[in-house]
């Protein structure tokens, strides 16, 4: 359709669409703010691990002082909060409850709505994450730091990119819902290496050598460790990080699109 309107009209259309989607989803998410607070609280793992490492362990991580450790895990907590993806669960429920069929009638891929829901949920989460960080600062004034403007900008970019990559990979997995009832179980399985290799339980610097190289060849550390190091002022290979994230995103995007088309054919073939 937009082809007939020329680039200017279609851009304006996209902007208006995004504004409507985001504002309606944000209003929806505000309704669930108590739930979102609980969700945010369930991301306490980096803070628990901080407690463990701050004992004797910190001396064994090359390049880390106790203070750097606090910064790292606090940054990992924040990064995790803004890279949480739940599209597979939303899609599974929508498909199960029959809400997918009406959504398919609209002239918009339902995944744009899920994306808007995720972004709005992050906006709802923001004040709460700030409150937790403020609380930590109250207990531990030395725990806070000022990231350099460049570091902050790069960390913001890396966090958003990590979120998008996770969203794309999980969307590809979500498409398996068309064929199997076990797609969500696969996602839970994929969450396990993410948990242990992403840097949520320990900065990658604490990994012994063959393991660290192995982890760095998976997408997981680039989704938490990389943005968290950028935010907390550590040294990381910046170009490689963005390159790896972009590569994984670009690898899974066509897979997700192809599976979506194949899945839709199957969905309508079932007579739904």
């Amino acid at each position, binding site marked *: 359709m937009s082809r007939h309107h020329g680039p200017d009209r279609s851009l304006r259309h996209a902007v208006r669409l995004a504004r409507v989607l985001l504002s309606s989803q944000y209003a929806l998410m505000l309704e*669930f703010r*108590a739930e979102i607070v*609980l969700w945010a609280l369930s991301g306490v793992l980096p803070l628990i691990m901080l407690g*463990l490492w701050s004992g004797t*362990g910190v001396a*064994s991580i090359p390049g880390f002082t106790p203070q750097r450790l606090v910064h790292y895990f606090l940054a990992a907590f924040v990064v995790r909060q803004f890279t949480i993806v739940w599209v597979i669960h939303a899609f599974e429920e929508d498909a199960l409850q029959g809400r997918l069929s009406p959504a398919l009638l609209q002239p918009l891929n339902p995944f744009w709505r899920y994306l808007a829901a995720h972004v709005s949920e992050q906006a709802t989460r923001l004040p709460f994450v700030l409150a937790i960080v403020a609380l930590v600062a109250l207990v531990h004034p030395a725990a806070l730091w000022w990231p350099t403007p460049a570091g902050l900008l790069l960390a913001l970019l890396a966090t958003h990119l990590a979120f998008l990559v996770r969203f794309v990979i999980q969307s590809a997995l979500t498409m398996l819902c068309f064929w199997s009832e076990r797609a969500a179980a696969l996602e839970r*399985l994929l969450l*396990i*290496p993410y948990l*242990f290799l992403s840097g949520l339980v320990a900065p990658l610097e604490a990994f012994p050598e063959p393991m660290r190289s192995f982890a760095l060849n998976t997408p997981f550390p680039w989704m938490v460790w990389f943005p968290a190091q950028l935010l907390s002022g550590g040294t990381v290979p910046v170009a490689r990080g963005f390159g790896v994230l972009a590569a994984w995103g670009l690898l899974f995007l066509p897979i997700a699109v192809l599976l979506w088309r194949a899945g839709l054919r199957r969905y309508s073939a079932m007579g739904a």
Partner: protein
Amino acid sequence: MARPAPELLRYLRTLRRFWAASLAAELEYQANFVLELLAVSANLAGSLFTLSLFYGHGHDLGGWSWDAALVVLGLYTLLDGLTTTLLQPNLSTIVTHVRTGTLDFVLLKPIDSQFWLSARTFSPWGLPGLAAGAVLVVVAAVRAGARPDALHLVAAALLLVASALILYSLWFVLAATSIWFVKVWNATEVLRSALVAGRYPVSAYPAGLRLFFTVVLPVAFLTTVPAEAILGRASPLWVVSSLLVAAVALLISRWFWGFALRFYTSASS
């Protein structure tokens, strides 16, 4: 009032029927078994790897040897299996019963409603976790050189029951709050993520967190205290306080359910 013995028998017989029926239903999905086995193995491998990061450089966690810490990890795996087998499949349905009003039917049954809600189904998919946890506990305890005498074994068994009861009570109280807050299901996710702290001996945490994990959220009683008993070094004070905490937690869950039910007004009202 029925005499206690036949009453108990009736509950045991009902329990057998419940679990046989849910087992038959669950076995329709055998692919789950492979997935669960993979998940348990991957989780154990990840936990072992994380532990090895602490021990790899000649450090230890709160004065626990590697093998002793593995007993704690084994107990955590065991309790996680229990959660998957019983707590999660049963207690996660309370919120649905409240939302759709089917809690009415549960309350009308000639059986204790807390019992029905807590034991109605049984998911065999937690069994790999239970088995892996039990094996890890035994192997690690033997490697740690534990020679517990009969008294310590009895204490360990009692403490295991106590830790299971504490875990159950925590879950049940949180799940029961769905009488007021239909959206409360996430609260059990918070609980589950905080209980991850129980993978490691509680003495490994700094003083403030240690106090929190003993007094506020009794993680210490879930894994560390039973592990001490298995390793043959339980102190009577900890054993008694663990049993006391379990009894109080169970009573609170019992009282809380009665209290919550007073506010239950069925779905339409």
